[in-house]
């Protein structure tokens, strides 16, 4: 069963980062009415706090506010859905820890496909990209 490689099944049965955060900086949800998939993503954001970190940015000319600076400190997903959407969420939340908001906004379906490592039929593409959509929605609010 090509699409249900071991790694996908493992992430589905033992999802990483499933649950909720104590401290939530941003969150987003989506519900796919055609298939009943529900997904919620909560993120905790890190900005450079130390004086040295802030000085580094001042010297480089990058504004202290903005997406290049903010990065994912911690992340959780919850909800219910098919193996592809859940495995994708599990793998994605692992992947983006430490990434900047700007980098996350640049992620596309190709990255998700590569991350999953399986070829998806057109009807399953939406399952795979649901977590990315929700994550990017959450990121856009910080």
């Amino acid at each position, binding site marked *: 069963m090509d699409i*249900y490689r071991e790694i996908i*099944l493992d992430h589905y049965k033992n999802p990483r980062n499933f649950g909720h955060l104590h401290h939530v900086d941003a969150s987003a949800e989506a519900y796919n009415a055609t298939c009943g998939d529900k997904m919620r993503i909560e993120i905790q954001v890190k900005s450079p706090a130390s004086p040295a970190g802030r000085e580094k940015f001042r010297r480089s000319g990058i504004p202290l506010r903005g997406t290049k600076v903010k990065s994912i400190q911690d992340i959780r997903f919850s909800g219910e859905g098919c193996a592809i959407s859940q495995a994708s969420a599990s793998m994605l939340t692992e992947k983006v820890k430490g990434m900047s908001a700007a980098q996350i906004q640049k992620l596309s379906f190709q990255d998700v496909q590569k991350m999953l490592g399986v070829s998806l039929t057109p009807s399953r593409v939406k399952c795979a990209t649901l977590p990315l959509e929700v994550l990017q929605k959450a990121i856009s609010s910080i």
Partner: protein
Amino acid sequence: MIDASSVRKDFPQLQRKINGKPIVYLDSSATSLKPKSVIDAVTGYYSDYTANVFRGIYTTSEEATAAYELARAKVAGFIGAHLPEEIVFTRNTTESLNLLAAGIGKTLHHEDEVITTIMEHHSNFVPWQQRVMKKNGVFKIWNIDKEGQLNLGDLDTLITRRTKVLTISASSNVLGTISPIKKIVSTVKRLNPKCLVFVDAAQAVPHMAVDVKDWGADAIAFSGHKMLGPTGIGVLWARISLLSDLPPYQYGGDMIEEVHRDKTLFKGPPHKFEAGTPHIAGAIGLGAAVDYLQALGLGAVRKHEIEITDYALKALARIKGVIVIGPRDARDRGGVVSFRLDKVHPHDIAQVLDESGVCIRVGFHCAQPLHEFLEIGPTARASFYLYTTKEDIDVLIEGVEKVKQLFK
């Protein structure tokens, strides 16, 4: 009695292999496969007598017109209609119901009531909901019980003197529930003789004998493609008095008597509702589908489906973790079985089954209110027809076991 293995020879697509395995098509509720006679009827029009209908004096136009109107007469006979004029060709059940809702919608007033059931397909739910809301009327929903059946006693409170329409499916595309239309119609008419009763017969006409005179309803809608016919052709049957009262749905050619600069006179039914060039090949194909079904006999079709459904229900009951929804007895339901499997999303069930060549439908089956009401989330659905065999069910069961193993 249907000999499914010999019937299958009539269906070219059943020769097909998916991933190296014979196709096991269990989605006839979505659309049915086509026998060669229907395919030949459609291509026959396109190769031998392509011409527009009602327009020409020349030979092929007369042939096309005759074939088109013959199809209409065949459909009328098939459902026991009094007159061929009571058969309107549309695109599908959805368009037939929209045509009714549009016409009735124009006559609705504030506080007028329209009733539908919780198990309706969106096509028999949304058009009414929207029209009633627009006119500030009352949109009532008749709920089902735990077995997926309607309780006739509810009608005593549901039907009032302000109720204009009760619209209901004869056979549910999710639960398989077959509703007693004749009893429902007579109860409604007793409580309010002016209330109209419409039937979504999309899952009924293909699978069981339907006689509109016996049902007593005011209109029924069904699709050609679910009864071995082509896509793009559907039927609205309604009493000639209702069709005469309803306003046209679309305007244009073929539905007019006279067009002047300042006024237009319309034709009577059915042509009043058939504007523009119709799906001529579709109607002709539908006529051939009627011939095929009548040769088999719908009594035999229904009997075959009860047998297959019973076999499937029993087999699914043996798999731990499978929950089937709808009436327990195969005799109370159409050949439609919707189910859930513990811990596995229906998408994944369908994907794994596809590997074995099994085609099932998953999701909400255009019945979101029903799934919301049942609080069950999306379901997987296997549906059967005259070409389904017990061997097909065996492959389905094997596949479901495989899914269970993979996801345990």
